[in-house]
């Protein structure tokens, strides 16, 4: 089980790296707070439908910004060094797990900040947290892989958006539906099926990422 050990060490490396250069994580947390405040000023006391879509738009944009750096921040030579030390799949998985944790933190913060300024609209907290967890996973899997693609080209920030946004739509649409249910905007008796769909999408994308990553890292 060397790959699990490798993932563990790489995850530790990611966290240590983040902790040493605190500006990145504090920057993204402040980004969320400012965005929430901007959105709140632009639409004072949004209705519940608007609350739902605005919340996920904020999380989406914060996620893209947070995940973009995962492959871009380290230069090619250092990555080559990593690839010679460990299994490339372990690198991808460690980044996916790290980004999932980061996005989970981000979306909790967005929810707390958004609830603070415009009132908590969530009626079924358990369901909403499930949506946050599944959403963070989906965003993390998709954007981490897209970041690996975009890091191969110049101008990767633009590429992140144009490659990532169309691909995230199935995840985003399922999320909007589940969280609309958690906000009691609609009463879907079959919300479990939507969650399983989302789990299936997350796994399909992750599986595809693992299958394709070996072709990507070689240069």
């Amino acid at each position, binding site marked *: 089980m060397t790959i699990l050990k490798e993932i563990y060490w790489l995850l530790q490396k990611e966290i240590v790296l983040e902790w040493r250069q605190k500006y990145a994580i504090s920057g993204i947390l402040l980004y969320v707070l400012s965005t929430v405040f901007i959105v709140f000023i632009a639409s004072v006391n949004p209705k519940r439908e608007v609350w739902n879509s605005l919340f996920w738009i904020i999380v989406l944009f914060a996620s893209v910004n947070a995940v973009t750096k995962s492959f871009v921040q380290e230069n090619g030579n250092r990555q080559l060094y990593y690839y010679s030390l460990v299994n490339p799949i372990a690198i991808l998985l460690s980044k996916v797990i790290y980004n999932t944790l980061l996005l989970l933190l981000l979306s909790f913060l967005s929810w707390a900040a958004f609830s603070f300024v415009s009132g908590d609209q969530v009626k079924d907290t358990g369901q909403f947290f499930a949506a946050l967890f599944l959403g963070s996973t989906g965003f993390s899997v998709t954007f981490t892989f897209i970041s690996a693609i975009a890091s191969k*080209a110049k101008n990767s920030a633009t590429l992140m958006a144009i*490659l990532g946004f169309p691909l995230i739509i199935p995840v985003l649409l399922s999320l909007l*539906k589940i969280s609309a249910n958690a906000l009691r905007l609609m009463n879907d008796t079959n919300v479990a099926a939507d969650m399983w769909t989302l789990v299936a999408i997350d796994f399909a994308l992750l599986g595809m990422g693992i299958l394709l990553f070996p072709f990507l890292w070689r240069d």
Partner: protein
Amino acid sequence: MKENWWKALGVIIIIYTFIAGLGAPLKHGISGVNPSSAQTGKLLDLDVVGYNSHYTVGDETMRAWLRMDLANSVDTEEFLIQADKIEVKDERNAQLQFRIPAYLPTTDKVKDFTLIVDNEANGPAVIPQAVFVTQDSINPAAAKAFPSATLDGVHNEWRFAFPYRTILYETIRNTYFHVALWFAMLFLFMRGIWFSGRYLFMGYDPVDDAKAMSFTAVGLLMGMLGLITGAIWATYTWGEPWSNDVKQITTAIALLIYLAYFVLRDAFEDEERRGRVSAVFSVFAFVALLALIYVVPRLTASLHPGNGGNPALGSDDLDNTMRMVFYPCIIGWCLIGAWMANIMWRTRALEIKALDDE
């Protein structure tokens, strides 16, 4: 020439599609019925306006029936009233006289009737819910005194004409372009992804990359044409070119994904790197696209046939005459698309070869 038979076949089918699909007339239809309501026990003079009709030609053979809707009927047999007198005014206008019986074999107060007009030159035209008959008093038992007419000897022989349908009318021909272009787009995207996979798993052959790129490019073209023909069609049938229909959204996203594919390709100068990264993206995007096709239709109903209770291809939408054009034209558009992609990748392969020779 022997290996190029499929190109000739594609051209022949497309020419056939244009000639038959645009040239064949619609079947005889009724575009107007006046009045649309009647009373029991009275004479009903019905003015009908025909579409693609030749009433003066088949004058003597012309007959007409009103057929009662079977819901809430007291017995399961059809109840028909045949027109007593038919007066043809010109090719498109006729007056039909019906003697509506005093009682109807139903417990409904108001009943809708289907109008059927038939003559030798035109064949039958059927218009559902043409006339609503109101009963003065309900007495299904007394209706036994009025026996049903019989619907026999209708001139139902086959003619090369497309069905006349309300709302669709002449736009029904767009089936051979809009729908068939979609099938061609799907086919071409599948080919593109196939070659992307081949490029990755079969040792980075630059010709495979050229094939993947060419099939995707032509697929994108077919997709855009499909979107445009669909928008034109929707203007006349749904009232607006874009109504945020499920399939419209899915298509727009699919086109966004493949436009991004070409932007991604342009971001690389190194050929091998471009091929590799864009192939990885196209395979990864395909999985997201499959997820999208699965997820989106569960969110809202679609206006498209086959969704939300609308009839689908293969049931009422396609009659046998339409099948004679529709099935070949799908193959035709796929072949033409494959030919276009073929020319594209061969040009690209020549360029690659010229670069190697230098």
